[in-house]
């Protein structure tokens, strides 16, 4: 019987590290195949289509989210602000900029495990048909614990969170990749 040599052990370690690490990075953190990044926002470009690539298929099967079919809409998520810093519940954020044309869109904040982080009595989501806009039609949304006027998505607690921007009715987004070239920018306005 052949002895297990240090080289053999190193190979097994490297194989496991590469295999598992690459899998985790591609599905959780890096999302470097099958995704579309715009600023800090990310979407799985082929999710919602009948023939997703193997990475998208693996990602879809991992989550327990009810997905959107492509003609229903498209969902962007982010865990980071415009500077690349993780979103924190004890900070206040301003979200402004263009949102691609859709029948309507919603913006929500959830803890990484899917828990709602909006306090009881507050709006759980911002809906585009019910927001106040300035004279030029633009809207700014504030997300944080600090009371603000205008469009405020109140959150509470401590720790990291993620924002979910869902654009409903994707018929206007059929030229995906070419059409969606702008999404709102998230700016940190201070932490407590």
């Amino acid at each position: 019987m052949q002895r297990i040599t240090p080289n053999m052990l190193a190979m097994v370690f490297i194989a496991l590290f590469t295999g598992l690490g690459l899998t985790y990075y591609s599905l959780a953190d890096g999302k470097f195949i099958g995704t579309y990044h715009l600023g800090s926002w990310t979407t799985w470009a082929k999710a919602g289509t009948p023939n997703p690539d193997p990475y998208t298929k693996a990602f879809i099967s991992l989550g327990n989210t009810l997905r959107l079919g492509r003609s229903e809409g498209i969902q962007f998520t982010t865990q980071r602000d415009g500077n690349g810093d993780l979103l924190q519940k004890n900070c206040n954020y301003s979200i402004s900029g263009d949102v691609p044309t859709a029948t309507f869109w919603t913006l929500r904040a959830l803890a990484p495990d899917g828990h709602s982080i909006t306090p009881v009595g507050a709006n759980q989501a911002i809906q585009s048909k019910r927001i106040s806009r300035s004279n030029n039609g633009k809207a700014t949304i504030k997300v944080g614990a600090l009371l603000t006027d205008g469009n405020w998505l109140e959150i509470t607690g401590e720790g990291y969170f993620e924002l979910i921007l869902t654009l409903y009715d994707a018929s206007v987004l059929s030229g995906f990749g070419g059409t969606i070239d702008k999404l709102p920018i998230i700016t940190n306005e201070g932490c407590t």
Partner: protein
Amino acid sequence: MIKTAIWIIAGILLGLIIHLVIILSLPNLVSNNAWNILSKISTPGKLIILKRPKPMEANVLRLDPELVYAVCRFDLLQGPGSLSGKLPSDFWSVGIFDKSGVAIYSTTNRSGGDQNLDLGIFSPAQTRLLAEHQLTLKTGVIIVKAPSNEVYAVIRLATPHPAMWQRYKETLKQLKCAHIK
């Protein structure tokens, strides 16, 4: 030195193979996905309305609180699936998904142009029977070809205001979801 480098390269190559095997087999291995959650709370051919997510509570299926959701699971071995009814003029959409969450078909009221929903969902074998005219359908039914027997439909209905959630929930309850016998 060269021998060690060969072992390292072999390790990296083996790692890439492990990575690809995991990615390709994940859809068949995962047990905590939307299908499994829905299997615990619904039976095939019965429409259920999902509870609205509440503030500070778990939102397991990551539902959008601005919408009312109805779900219907189908086991096409029991017969082709049927989903029909009338919906409000506000935005609504329907997505049909296979067990692993891959979208088979989706539509919205904008593409349909009216408030009526009438879908027939057929397995590959049932689709063949349809083509051979051994199954008959009423006119106007949209035929959805499912690649497997276990599929689920998600119906989303947008509420103009959160206060109307209950009323729209009652509207969705009127949808008919069944297996065609």
